């Protein structure tokens, strides 16, 4: 929705909100005004922008549905790509296209994969633009190729693998129903009823940090809080976990990019 229009509607609706708690109103206002569309627009510009030594755009990038096909592409990831002979999620596939189509080095293309409120990253813009075009489509990552099955199984084992200074696995926080950290509810992400609504909304705009966040960022920041060293962007580990989580959410209509607290 157009930002000005949103503001006008908000002002018009103000008297009706008087009954609600100030916090609920703040939340609603923050959500209404979250600039997801701006990220999508920025992503479209970057998708079409010629850059790198080959002075090429990403428009011929094959995200699994054929070169340049964006409709439904995100809902079908991660999946196996024969040209790279590996399973890729959206971000590792974008990185692949940046290196092959645009001729950029991996080092240059991953210099700043996670942005912040002031300067979002290229990956964040592109993720917003591409994910939007799976809106309403069912989550259906690749499950049949032997490497897709191997990624799922590795992701499932990684989810429960305890390691690091604090002996944590993903399941340390996301393994038991009805638990929370401080006041944050913890979804049991190995179970479809919890994975489905959650995975259907990533990537997302985060109101609390005014930034757009992707699944690669989520994996990275969970490992930080698990007191582990840092996973490489788009690595086998992070892609396998995303493959496991998306497969656990299989069949859920995608409804992102969403807005989160």
């Amino acid at each position, binding site marked *: 929705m157009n930002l000005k229009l949103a503001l006008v509607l908000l002002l018009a609706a103000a008297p009706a909100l008087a009954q609600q708690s100030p916090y609920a109103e703040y939340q609603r206002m923050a959500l209404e005004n979250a600039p997801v569309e701006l990220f999508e627009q920025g992503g479209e510009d970057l998708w079409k922008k010629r850059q790198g030594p080959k002075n090429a755009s990403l428009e011929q990038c094959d995200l699994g549905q054929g070169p340049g096909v964006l409709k439904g592409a995100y809902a079908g990831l991660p999946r196996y790509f024969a040209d790279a002979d590996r399973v890729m999620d959206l971000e590792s596939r974008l990185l692949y296209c940046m290196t092959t189509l645009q001729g950029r080095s991996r080092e240059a293309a991953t210099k700043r994969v996670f942005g912040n409120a002031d300067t979002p990253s290229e990956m964040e813009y592109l993720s917003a633009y591409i994910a939007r075009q799976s809106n309403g489509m069912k989550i259906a990552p690749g499950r049949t190729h032997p490497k897709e099955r191997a990624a799922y199984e*590795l992701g499932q084992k990684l989810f429960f693998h305890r390691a690091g200074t604090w002996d944590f696995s993903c399941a340390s926080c996301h393994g*038991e129903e009805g*638990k929370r950290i401080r006041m944050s509810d913890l979804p049991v992400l*190995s179970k479809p009823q919890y994975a489905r609504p959650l995975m259907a909304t990533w990537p997302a705009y985060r109101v609390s940090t005014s930034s757009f966040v992707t699944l690669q960022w989520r994996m990275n920041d969970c*490992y930080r809080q698990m007191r582990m060293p*840092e996973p490489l962007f788009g690595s086998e580990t992070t892609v396998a976990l995303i493959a496991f989580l998306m497969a656990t959410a299989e069949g859920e209509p995608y409804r992102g990019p969403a807005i989160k607290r």
Partner: protein
Amino acid sequence: MRPFLPMCFAVTLAACAAPATVGERPDVSPGDLDKITAVLKHDFHERGQARMDRIELDAVQRLCNLHADNPPEALAKPLEEAQLKAIPFPQGNLIGDWKRGERIAQSGRGSMWSDKPGVQDGGSCYNCHQLSPREPAHGTLGPSLAGFGKLRGASAEMQKYAYGRIYNSKAYNVCSQMPRLGHAGTLNEQQIKDLVGLLLDPASPVNQ
């Protein structure tokens, strides 16, 4: 997650060998652990204080991963005893300053690659436990510790138990979900004493 193993023992052993379905914790072999560790070693890099040696599994992590956090008693007991033996219990009174303890319990910093080592590290206690009734924003992953000292007293034995539990929870329950805060080097002796004070001091808000 926890009821899974006993449940499958109750059905048949064959059910345990079948591939895990969605939502269940899969069986993991020693070979799987080696493979996972090799993948992590390949995919991760050192950052800040988070060095690559954190990828390596120690005997406790290995046992708990192999047995879905529910190892047979015969394997768990000797490891618990070894962990208990390795705790350097200080001499004398272990009840530190509960006010400092409260600050340590509140702080979620410590041992992350984004934390400056040794600077105001906390125990992240409130992330998982209820402690002072004045703090409503507490997690529920661990049991409530409200009234801990009021219920148990502050005997030398209880001080030692509280100190040991914080230093290395795995000495008491080998697959405990609680980090080994002293063993891991996150908290030092004085900080753990201050937390013991928070738990046991009759003046602590925990015991009001």
